[in-house]
């Protein structure tokens, strides 16, 4: 077999438990659930970073942020960084990315970055330097069409909306305020931050646009020939402003509060106070360490009804994605490719959605942000045996997995091995731990976090910075404390465990790998 076609589906900021096959009870996700039943469903997939740009760069490169150099949002991935798309392009694949890329900053008034420039010019790709010294299509993609969370900026979806449907622009939530900070303005029925009632017709919403443009690109493909298509939905990332016509799918007043939402403020604060000090500082509105949450929003003000409404709207957005994915899969079937396409579904990072009384994300390495949905449904022609994998896996394995699917040589620059197909395979190939990194330095606040997930423990170290002195950490025993509420970092009975986990993190830091020069922070996001 020369290779198989690959549909790589990503969402943005989606929790593991928002999908039916993963135990989610709010959104109906029959498409995802069917893929999970037919293929490999991973119960412990972890990102290399819990924010968009570094995590997405890790998917593309198969490397950790400390290797590829895009270490925080606002730091562009080097244009000549390794790319699985380029690798597949070399293997004869047609390559496309449709939707949210975000390897380069969005906020770009000077128009310096290729993603923004090629969107502004309306061209499918540009020639760029490649990691091996050659020049080729941008990051290995023949075709790029971009969208993000709204209708501002130069990207394709925003331009399409401005040209075709200008009357609908004002219904979208303004993701940034007048000072270009993440907007704290409330809306909806509960005045929750980043919520709006958006009258845009469903067919004009970005979820539908991403599916429409993916189908259009697939329709342009010849019957014969392999392709790799990264279909990247901007939702269910905030703002939570799905088409108003769809809001009735989920009645927010009937949405149960999350299991990890302590009902009483005193209980929330007791749980948060067990964690490293920046948790409480953010909760009280004293510090926002980065651009990932509204600077003027105080998490302590979050109400139970706001959590319900956000989670209802999140579920609406998840359902729309599931239906859009179903539409794309039907288009693939109609082309006669139904037996030959591998589908991989995941996201870049999670979202608090009320856990601990918080929303959004940041340097907080707990399951809300770390535990991701991941399903790989191999081409049906390969007669896959469905399985559920409980071993820890990382998004850095995706690049090697795509190369393996394509029958291409294993790239020598990836840090991940191809995903295991069952727990025996995982055990045999040493899938026992994953690492997530966080580094940020913005407006005088720097935070540096390293987290290791093993089968039993979730272990975090805070390196010295303006918020931490290097002595703080978090250690959760997952079997006893699946909600990560009891920090046992200083528990003497776990001191040997802590030493062993520290040594594993240290080994990660010292791993023998060729690292890119860390990129410069040049934009907030």
């Amino acid at each position, binding site marked *: 077999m020369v290779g198989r076609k690959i549909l790589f589906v990503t969402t943005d900021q989606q929790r593991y438990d928002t999908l039916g096959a993963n135990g989610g009870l709010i959104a109906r996700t029959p498409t995802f659930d069917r893929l999970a039943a037919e293929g490999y469903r991973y119960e412990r997939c972890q990102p290399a970073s819990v924010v968009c740009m570094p995590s997405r760069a890790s998917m593309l490169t198969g490397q950790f942020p400390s290797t590829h150099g895009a270490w925080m949002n*606002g730091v562009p991935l080097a244009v000549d960084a390794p790319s699985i798309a380029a690798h597949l392009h070399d293997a004869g694949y047609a390559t496309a990315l449709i939707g949210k890329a975000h390897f380069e*900053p969005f*906020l*770009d*008034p*000077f*128009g*310096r970055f290729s993603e923004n*420039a090629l969107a*502004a010019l309306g061209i499918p790709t540009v020639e760029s330097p490649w990691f091996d010294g050659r020049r080729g299509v941008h990051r290995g993609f023949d075709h790029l069409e971009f969208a993000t969370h709204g209708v501002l900026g*130069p990207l394709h979806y925003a331009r399409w909306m401005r040209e075709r449907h200008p009357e609908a622009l004002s219904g979208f939530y303004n993701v*940034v305020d007048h*000072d*270009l*900070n993440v907007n704290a303005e409330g809306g909806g029925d509960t005045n929750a931050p980043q919520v709006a009632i958006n009258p845009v017709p469903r067919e004009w919403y970005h979820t539908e646009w991403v599916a429409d443009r993916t189908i259009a690109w697939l329709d342009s493909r010849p019957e014969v020939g392999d392709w790799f298509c990264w279909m990247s939905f901007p939702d269910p990332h905030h703002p939570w402003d799905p088409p108003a016509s769809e809001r009735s799918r989920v009645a927010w007043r009937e949405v149960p509060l999350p299991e990890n939402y302590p009902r009483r403020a005193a209980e929330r604060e007791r749980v948060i106070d067990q964690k490293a000090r920046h948790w409480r500082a953010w909760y009280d509105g004293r510090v926002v360490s980065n*651009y990932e949450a509204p600077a003027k929003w105080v998490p302590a003000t979050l109400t139970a009804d706001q959590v319900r409404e956000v989670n209802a709207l999140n579920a609406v957005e998840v359902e729309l994605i599931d239906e859009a994915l179903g539409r794309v899969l039907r288009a693939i079937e109609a082309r006669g490719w139904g037996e030959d396409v591998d589908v991989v579904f995941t996201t870049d990072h999670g979202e608090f959605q009320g856990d601990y009384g918080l929303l959004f994300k940041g340097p907080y390495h707990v399951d809300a942000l770390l535990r991701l949905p991941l399903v790989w449904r191999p081409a049906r022609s390969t007669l896959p045996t469905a399985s559920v994998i409980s071993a820890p896996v990382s998004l850095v394995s995706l690049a090697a997995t795509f190369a393996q699917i394509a029958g291409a040589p294993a790239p020598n620059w990836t840090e991940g091995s191809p995903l295991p197909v069952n727990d025996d395979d995982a055990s045999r190939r040493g899938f026992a731990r994953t690492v997530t990194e966080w580094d940020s330095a*913005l*407006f005088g606040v720097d935070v540096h976090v390293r987290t290791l997930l093993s089968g039993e423990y979730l272990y975090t170290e805070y390196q010295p910075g303006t918020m931490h002195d290097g002595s703080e950490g978090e250690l959760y025993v997952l079997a006893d404390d699946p909600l990560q509420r009891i920090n046992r970092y200083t528990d003497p009975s776990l001191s040997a465990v802590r030493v062993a986990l520290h040594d594993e993190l240290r080994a990660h830091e010292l791993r023998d790998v060729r690292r890119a020069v860390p990129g*410069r*922070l*040049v*934009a*907030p996001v």
Partner: protein
Amino acid sequence: MASLRYEIRISASADAVWDIVKDPVSLPNWFPGIVAAVVEGSIRTVTLNTGVTMPEELLTIDSLQRRIAYRITAPAYHSHLGTIDVIDLGERDSLCVYSTTAEPDVLALLVGGATAGALDSIKHLAEG
């Protein structure tokens, strides 16, 4: 108010670096994303790649100190001060420092981030 500073070491004399940056209409040669610059008196108007025009006030072009100071006067900025300093470190050795202080903070980062790219261009031009 946020303040950012980027600097770059250049293997060229301070005079050679200063010759590149001192002309206020030379920005399109070395500031990525600026495609035109027009000066009338102390007012410079730059045009960005995105088509946006941005008015600036030139405050200082001091060849003795090799220092430029200017401020962006576009309404989005509550305040802004940009400075470029070229510091002599030796016969073919200099340091170019580009500082941005602005409010809102995010705009400081957006402009400051672009100045980092400008320093790369200045180094490239100076070192040939």
